[in-house]
């Protein structure tokens, strides 16, 4: 993970030696060129989607020539595949949404002076959430909340809070204290300091946490099937229990493709949302 550097780091070496405005122009070496590079290169935009398309195409071709028996037909027909895929997307999206609205405000709160003492306690809980095996957590939740999507969502959310929470805290703590003092010193309110300085500077780290959480969520969403939450896990478990390779392969390939796609989208978001002017280029 990259720690955002403060203002003092890595100054260009050249100095202006001129006194007045005119002299600066005359004596200073040409301005540091460094025009801001486009942040998203075409390689970044094309390579991974191309690989995904190739993967899906290969799977499809394989299915074309494969002979499916009744059981496989039964597991895959009637739009069950798209339904499972959609459920997985839904599970990932909703759980990530809840992770964000829980972990980021909590992280902000825990870095405020009044609540700083509670940080170790909160981190312990978050750690417990992640250290518990996801499947065990899910089982407990099913006992408590019954089967269905809700318990799956709660489980996935608890599981993914930690990376976002710890990255939010780390990001806010990594901010240069002299910079924050400068912000207060020029008359920003505490809320203004948070909104205009602290959060923008912490964005890179927070986004890295969100990306981790997203990928985790795609993975854990396949476990939702054990709690009756649906998702691509249904295909995988069906494939295993009925010993039908094509079903299993389709479930796995789609899960992998979804995880890679989500990760790719998150990496684009990281690049685009990172405040300009921070650290090294793309």
């Amino acid at each position: 993970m990259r720690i955002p550097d403060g203002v003092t780091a890595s100054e260009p070496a050249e100095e202006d030696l001129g006194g007045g405005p005119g002299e600066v122009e005359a004596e200073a070496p040409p301005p540091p060129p460094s025009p801001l590079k486009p942040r998203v290169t075409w390689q970044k935009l094309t390579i991974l989607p191309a690989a995904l398309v190739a993967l899906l195409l290969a799977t499809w071709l394989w299915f074309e020539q494969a002979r499916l028996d009744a059981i496989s037909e039964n597991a895959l027909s009637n739009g069950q595949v798209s339904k499972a895929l959609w459920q997985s997307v839904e599970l990932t999206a909703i759980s990530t949404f809840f992770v964000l609205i829980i972990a980021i405000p909590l992280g902000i709160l825990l870095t405020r002076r009044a609540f700083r003492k509670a940080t170790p306690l909160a981190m312990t809980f978050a750690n417990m959430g992640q250290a518990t095996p996801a499947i065990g957590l899910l089982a407990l939740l099913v006992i408590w909340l019954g089967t269905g999507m809700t318990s799956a969502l709660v489980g996935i959310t608890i599981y993914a809070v930690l990376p976002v929470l710890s990255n939010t805290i780390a990001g806010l703590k990594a901010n240069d204290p002299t910079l924050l003092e400068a912000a207060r010193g020029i008359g920003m309110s505490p809320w203004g300091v948070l909104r205009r300085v602290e959060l923008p500077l912490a964005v890179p780290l927070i986004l890295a946490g969100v990306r981790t959480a997203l990928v985790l969520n795609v993975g854990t969403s396949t476990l939702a099937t054990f709690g009756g939450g649906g998702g691509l896990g249904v295909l995988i478990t069906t494939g295993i229990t009925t010993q039908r390779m094509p079903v299993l392969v389709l479930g796995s390939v789609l899960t992998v493709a979804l995880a890679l796609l989500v990760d790719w989208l998150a990496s684009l978001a990281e690049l685009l949302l990172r405040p300009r002017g921070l650290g090294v280029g793309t």
Partner: protein
Amino acid sequence: MPETAASGASIELENLSKRYPGSPGPAVDNVSMEINAGETVIFVGPSGCGKSTTLKMINRLIEPSGGRIRIDGEDVTDMDPVRLRRKVGYAIQASGLFPHMTVAQNIALVPRMAGWPKGRIRERVEEMLDLVGLDPGEFHGRYPRQLSGGQQQRVGVARALAADPPVLLMDEPFGAVDPITRDHLQDELIRLQHELRKTIVFVTHDFDEAIKLGDRIAVLREHSHIAQFDTPEAILTNPADDFVSGFVGAGAALKRLNLTRVRDMEINDYPTVAVDEPLQEIFSKLRSSSTNEILLLDRHGRPYKWLRRGDLMRAKGALARAGTLVSDTVPRDATVRDALEAVLTDSAGRVAVTGRRGEYTGVVDVETLMNSVHGLLEADRLDAMAHRHDLAELRVTQTHAEQEGPGGERKA
């Protein structure tokens, strides 16, 4: 710039103290000080003497645990700190610019918070960039990391001044730049202050910087006790005690010479003659002059050659070959130290003083220089003694008031 012509506000610190819970002694102990409007006051002292703490108490980044602060007569000790800080410019070491904002956004911060209309903010940003010597068109859209250290520091000052605050607090602003750039930034600050006449409180541990920038200097010892609060001249020539003289360092008299310009000193008239005058004229002038030397000026009135009595004879009357070329001159705006340097290196111990366009205005030599310097130092000494007398009296009344107890002090 009519609006920037507004001058600063006075600052009064009254028995200001800071005590941190859990530490035995106070960090800042009972500091009282009056800073006049439009004055540049430097807090100078060793590391950890509480000078930064004292500064930060003025805009209440650090809340004082006792005492009052008044700005322009208004008690700000219990005012909303956010409102107070918007009226007080603040510039710190390493500029404190926000890396995710452009130069223009950084400068616009305070005016934006103060709710200025957009158009006015835009104009103001350009104006401020211009003021600190950066080309608005070029630097407007840059990010801080695309600037050199010196440029960042300029932007930092521009940001502090953007909302035109009457008071500017500077916490070792030039501590992180190289000596050459620092020198330029100091010159710029002097120029700025000449235009703006803000009240500036400036913290540094560099005594030379303090002498260069300060109208008055407060030399602070531990717990921010004021060892001496006086003009640079007085501190140099008459340090209050061993602590101050230790801090002033060696060569105080030489440093003192930096504070006076040649134009403020006695400059001798010298017999001169222009190149285009007839030779006969030159001869007679040489013969009649009290010195055995005259200064030959070129067509623009600039010092050209020193002519001694025998020179013309030896050169057989050819002016082009006679005499020695003037190797070094001192402009009137140079410091006395520069003049002394020039006189010492000159083989004959005298140097021509020139005006703005290099024209001759007079000559200084070792003797006149020594006399002037002695006069200066003597005058300083008298001044400093008078100040110290005042300060001692002030202290007596203060201790008196303290002994009377807080109630008596309030009434007084």
